[in-house]
């Protein structure tokens, strides 16, 4: 199966001024620093990581909302333009975004139905009546009754708002939906509903999903594949079940061990990360994770491990997993 979305060596650096006012040295914030992955049509890739690891920037780069410093994003075989030209606009029919804060993402002066019909109006699809009909049908399929469709965003609950945002994103029948923290602004009880809805919608519309989240639970439930990011790079990638059951990278191990679970065996220790929280302006040399890694070796401080196959369709970037480096240590 050919990939719908292909990302190669994607990087986004920001010029920043280090503290110190006029005297501050210019610095470089490496938000995303060499990320590659691909996504097949109708599948779901989840990207997890702490805040500041570059996952949201990755999402924006994929959609062409930001100019990449290096690397390329290919969508349906063609590079995604990062300037808002006619090509970029045309691509919006194929790729759409779902936001973290549904109330902020909706125009509070328009009722739900008009919001969902708007993308059709933007692209001049159908008559006004047809657009409203399509919007109503889609709202019904995300679970919003006709009674609720005439309401304004502030008259809807958080879960209902996110349904409106989903319907608006899907009304153009895109091939890819990028969801940036789709559930983190919602109550826990409603999170599950939205996650179920996402998988239902994927089955119904065959849309590919790129889910960005800091919540391992969410990613595990919806994803066919998971990528773990740390300081702008993917450190481990694989199928969710295998990855979460037997994490290979020390960082993933730490993340997984932090999930509270009644089934955790007595012997399993929680791995507590030490050291400073990651700072994307001063990325450590070698493996970015080595200052906090309980198993760090001398080589970790000098050489950056590459993302390599470790069997079972999984990939990880850690010297512990490459025999040569381990032997040398």
């Amino acid at each position, binding site marked *: 199966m050919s990939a719908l979305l292909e990302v190669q060596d994607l990087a986004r650096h920001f010029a920043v001024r280090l503290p110190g006012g006029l005297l501050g040295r210019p610095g470089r914030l490496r938000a995303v620093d060499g990320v590659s992955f691909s996504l097949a049509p109708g599948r779901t890739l989840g990207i997890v990581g702490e805040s500041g690891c570059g996952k949201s920037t990755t999402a924006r780069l994929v959609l062409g909302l930001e100019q990449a410093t290096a690397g390329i994003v290919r969508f349906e075989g063609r590079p995604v333009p990062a300037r808002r030209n006619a090509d970029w606009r045309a691509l919006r029919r194929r790729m759409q975004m779902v936001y973290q804060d549904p109330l*902020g993402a909706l125009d509070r002066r328009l009722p739900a139905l008009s919001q969902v019909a708007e993308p059709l109006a933007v692209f001049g699809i159908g008559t006004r009546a047809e657009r409203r009909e399509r919007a109503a049908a889609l709202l019904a399929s995300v679970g919003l009754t006709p009674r609720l469709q005439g309401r304004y965003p502030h008259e809807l609950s958080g879960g209902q708002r996110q349904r409106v945002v989903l319907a608006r994103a899907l009304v153009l029948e895109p091939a890819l939906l990028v969801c940036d923290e789709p559930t983190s602004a919602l109550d826990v009880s409603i999170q599950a509903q939205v996650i179920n809805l996402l998988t239902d919608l994927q089955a119904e519309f065959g849309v590919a999903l790129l889910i960005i989240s800091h919540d391992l639970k969410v990613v595990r439930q919806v994803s066919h594949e998971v990528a773990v990011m740390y300081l702008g790079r993917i450190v481990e990638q694989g199928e969710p079940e295998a990855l979460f059951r037997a994490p290979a990278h020390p960082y993933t191990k730490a993340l997984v061990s932090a999930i509270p679970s009644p089934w955790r065996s007595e012997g399993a220790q929680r791995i507590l990360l030490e050291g400073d929280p990651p700072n994307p302006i001063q990325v450590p040399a070698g493996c970015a994770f080595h200052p906090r890694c309980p198993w760090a070796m001398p080589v970790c401080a000098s050489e950056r491990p590459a993302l390599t196959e470790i069997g079972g369709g999984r990939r990880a970037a850690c010297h512990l997993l490459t025999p040569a480096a381990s032997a040398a240590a």
Partner: protein
Amino acid sequence: MASVDDLRGPGAGIELEAEGAAERGLLGRFFLACPPLVLFGLAWIALMLVVAVFADALAPYEYTAMDLRARLSPPVFMGGAWAHPLGTDELGRDVLSRLIVSIRISLLIAFAGTFISAFIGVVLGFLAAHFRGWVEHAVLTLIDFQASMPFMIMALAVLAFFGNTLALFVCLMGFYGWERAARIARGLTIAANQQGYAGAVRNIGASPFRVYVLHVLPNIASTLIVSITLTFPELILLESGLSFLGLGVQPPMTSLGNMVGYGRDYLQSAPWTLLSPSVVIVLTTFSISMVGDWLRDRLDPTLQ
């Protein structure tokens, strides 16, 4: 798919409010919502609008018509005749007729000026928020420049250099207060672009025109209206001040400030020629400020 959150109707909060209001009584609730001064303000503004619109029909005399036999005749309440209810000026022109025409001219200038200033401000604010970078810096510098100079002095300089015509004068008034609208438009638009609805609509693929005119403008309208209620009375004061100095509306045309300015010489002998326009200026600016304050409390509690 029925969810738990469907059960919580939006009507619940409203009913609670209504209960509290019932205790205060209907009349009390009405006055709480619309204090008497605001009601007075609304009524006065309505009266002024009616006067301005129907000035021709309402004025008993032509505002330039002179009656040299009845020069400086006092108003009714100072023992004058009903022929000239508010008296006449030094050329025997009917003060009431001049007042009515002046209200029309002054309101027209203030309306046009407010509209131009809001338009300039919103366009510049949108440009700054859309392009950011050097465009934004240029707009901010202009805002700084405008805000740091007393507008009266700038206006006087322009009038000195260009001379005075009504069209120029109106345009000049349109440069008053644009920086307030520009600040509001820029700030709210940047917020909306960065993590709000405007950014979302843009990412759908909507054109900038659609984003700014159909989405951002309606959303910032209430805050803009509140800022307009600040600009409008200030413009009336500015226009009447310049006209008072003889540098605004030029005779034979008349405006409220113009009437006060020319009546000043008769302060001792015929104070009524400047009394009625002064009262109208004060009551109008007072009314708009009252209504504006009230609107601000209701529409936008964050703006002080």
